[in-house]
């Protein structure tokens, strides 16, 4: 993001129509939140709800959210499902492979806090925030598609207020 640090803050004004003047922050934030590409990362039952949200009834594509198979192409890691300790080392590697700016949404009870396996699950990581920083938590077991959409909209709000030109 070094090129953005060299942008001047003054903007030229044009009087005739068809020209929009905005700040680079707002333009970049708008473009980032309108096409949040997420990872094909369904681990357990929450994956079914993620697929249902991507399907035609609730349709994630109208928000610009499409699934991608590689961590190099994505903005959001949507951890949906139970995170076992065996998988946790792989999730850490995927998170480190993602390019900035990256976000993580923890979907469902298992990814938030271990879920129904919190007490006796010797093999379950009690919440994916023990290994990666999470931006939005979506409760539910599994969360309804509307809840997942609400989580994405909350993340959009967070991106809208971010600033790429200045460090925050």
């Amino acid at each position, binding site marked *: 993001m070094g090129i953005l640090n060299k942008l001047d803050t003054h903007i030229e004004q044009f009087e005739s129509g068809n020209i929009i003047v905005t700040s680079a922050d707002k333009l970049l934030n708008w473009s980032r939140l309108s096409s949040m590409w997420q990872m094909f990362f369904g681990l357990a039952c929450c994956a079914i709800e993620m697929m249902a949200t991507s399907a035609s009834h609730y349709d994630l594509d109208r928000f610009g959210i499409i699934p991608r198979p590689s961590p190099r192409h994505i903005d959001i890691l949507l951890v949906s499902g139970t995170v076992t300790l*065996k998988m*946790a*080392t792989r999730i850490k590697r995927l998170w480190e492979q993602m390019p900035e700016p990256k976000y993580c949404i923890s979907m469902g009870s298992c990814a938030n806090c271990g879920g129904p396996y*919190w007490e006796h699950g010797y093999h379950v*990581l*009690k919440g994916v925030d023990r290994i990666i920083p999470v931006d939005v938590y979506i409760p539910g077991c599994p969360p309804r598609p509307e809840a997942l959409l609400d989580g994405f909209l909350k993340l959009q709000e967070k991106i809208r207020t971010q600033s790429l030109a200045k460090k925050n």
Partner: protein
Amino acid sequence: MDIKEIHGILKSVFEEGISEPVTDKPVDPYMIVEANKINAVCLFLRDEERMQFDYLSCLSGVDYDKDNLAVVYHLYSFALNHKLVIKVVVPKSDPKVPTVSDIWAAADWHEREAYDLIGVVFENHPDLRRILCPEDWEGHSLRKDYKVPEFYNGMKVPY
């Protein structure tokens, strides 16, 4: 064929190492076979004309709390529509059982699971390693005296 007839045939062929069928418990009647004979007995059960147990429904490991481990085999015959339950009981200090994966291919992964979770070591198994837990996991998780580890690779395990 019911279990008493099967027991009669097995006794006439193998003579010793096979216990009487246990029928008074509220479960399927079963027989206990000694560990060193299980391969020969299972091969006989699969190939013999009158029995033809060609399907291994399930192979499970068991932890009996007082220093014994067991392996339970559930067999079924598609041709003759009868089933059988066999157990092998081994001490916890030396839990070795010959494998039956050369007789029924399904036993391959079932035995890996019994090794991973209970700790029964299967001799002559083609690929005996953990199947559910990670490769560097310590301990056998479904034993009665298993303690949950505090940390695994830097991650805190309990809640």
